[in-house]
């Protein structure tokens, strides 16, 4: 998904971990954790669902895989997507950039899925 940029990874959570350990739990630190938790679980599920649905459409309509196998292949991939995205959510430096990336990806995937569903229906 391109969020994972090696040199800048992981600083944000570490900072908040150090803060939490030293007992200084600022509102900013808490908001940071909350933003990442929201990104890692509910938003992640939404995005992965969109990606799974879009992949199933792409495999079937775009690449000519039969619909049953396209659906199952997307389903199998979804768990990899979800777990990697969950790790990335805690690994990247900036929670804001994480959210922007996720919203952007969601918009692109959602638009693609919508177009695909509108142009050719379901079985």
């Amino acid at each position, binding site marked *: 998904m391109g969020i994972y940029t090696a040199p800048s990874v992981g600083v944000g959570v570490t900072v908040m971990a150090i803060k939490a350990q030293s007992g200084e739990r600022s509102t900013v630190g808490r908001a940071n954790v909350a933003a990442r938790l929201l990104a890692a679980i509910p938003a992640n599920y939404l995005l992965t669902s969109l990606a799974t649905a879009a992949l199933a459409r792409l495999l079937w309509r775009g690449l000519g895989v039969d619909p049953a196998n396209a659906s199952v292949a997307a389903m199998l991939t*979804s768990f990899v997507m979800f777990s990697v995205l969950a790790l990335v959510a805690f690994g990247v430096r900036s929670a804001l950039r994480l959210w922007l990336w996720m919203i952007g990806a969601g918009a692109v995937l959602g638009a693609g899925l919508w177009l695909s569903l509108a142009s050719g229906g379901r*079985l």
Partner: protein
Amino acid sequence: MKDSLRQSMALFHTWSGLLLGWLLFAMFATGTAAYFQDEITRWMQPEVTGSADPETSAQGAVRYLNTVAPDAISWYITLPNGRSATTQVYWQPGDGTRGKRGETSAVLDQTGRAITVRETSGGFFLYRFHFDLHYMPVLWARYLVGIAAMFMLTAILSGIVTHKKIFADFFMLRFGKGQRSWLDAHNVTAVIALPFHLMITFTGLVTLASMYMPWGIAANYASPAVFQEQVFGREPAAERSGRAQPLVDLAPLMRTASAEWGGKQVGYISVTNPGDATARVLITRSPGAAIAARGETAAFAGATGKALGGHTATGAAVATESVMIGLHTGRFAQWGLRWLYFLSGIGGTIMVGSGLVLWTVKRRTRLPDPARPHFGFRLVERLNIAAIAGLATGIAVYFLANRLLPADLAQRADREIDSLFLAWLAVGLWGMVRPAGRAWTETLALAGACFAAVPVVNALTTSRGFAASIMSGDWLFVAFDLMMIALAACFLQAAGKVAQHRAKNASAPPRRAARKAVSQ
């Protein structure tokens, strides 16, 4: 910079592991036992002896169903395999009602007589518990279990990122070295069976994938039923014609189907509209006959026995899914591999359990006042006791109840299950009211004692005790007793270790010992 990634992953690993660790422990423990679910069931039905022939059993099941549910919408027959000796039947009543469990199902011997003595859910309960839980709607349970499995998957991945060194420290485990050895135990059980852990967690998610991630199917199909029909060849049942026509003998159909699959055994038979001219027989390959879990099917007209064509799901993704489910359930495994599965499962159980204990061990040293920990710490400590010692005691009591409850008790199978949870609850409560260190010793010892009691009670209440089983070469019963003794020894030893550790800590000044342990 690399270190900060590792640190954030470590944090993630700790909390994702802790949050659902208790549930994961129960899933791992009962799922591991489920690799021997047929053997456990046989042990819990000591009155059933010998083996059963699938063809004779199918004929017996049809005789039984013809008297009990001749006008059913459909019959489902699970045939005995090499490991089990009974037939499970289940039927959908003709009036469309959904009967209570136990009223629309039965366990039969190969002549088609219902087995009523010592009614039990056997190993099947442990298998179902590991993803359906109990006392709660199955749907909720499966979502909960799915969330736990997803946490497990992320915990494993973040664990790999965190502890890259564990691959280099591969041979560094040292037994019995106090707090360090908890970390060693966690790392080594994790690393040694890492392929197993990744496989079992991922494939576990795959078994219920269409529940957790239905959007891949929803994107291509307006109705999941169409997908089901394409992949599994399930057709909606035809209307009953009203013209009665007896069902043909199933044995020749089974032989035809088996020959079509290159000699692989039949596992399940379902009959829709039995006794009617529209009856349809669907024969499914045994999941034990190949790695892929979703067996080939062959359909026949129930009135004439004419083949209606079979169905084998095709395509790379569908086949991959089927193999993944097969890998998870391990039904194809012969004895050697089955034991490898079982031992790997025990490794996984220890990994989760030691990870849970590790959370408290690491934090105890950092507590402002180790003698008076804060609420969260106490909660985790108590839940660990309940989860680890409580479940172990519960399972042992489940086996004991099977031997001790009256053989003809009403709703006996449910009472056995209740006794498991009562024992679990009792140990949990005991852990709440006692000081944590002492509670560990006592509950672990109790679990050990309960496991040790199983062979004794078995010998006293049945004619298939340890000595008798050895004499008659009944290796299943011998192995069961030995396993109980091994488990008893492990839990008693653990109880002794904890007691020793406490005695040592009581004599040493706690603060200094603590500080030394944290500097790892």
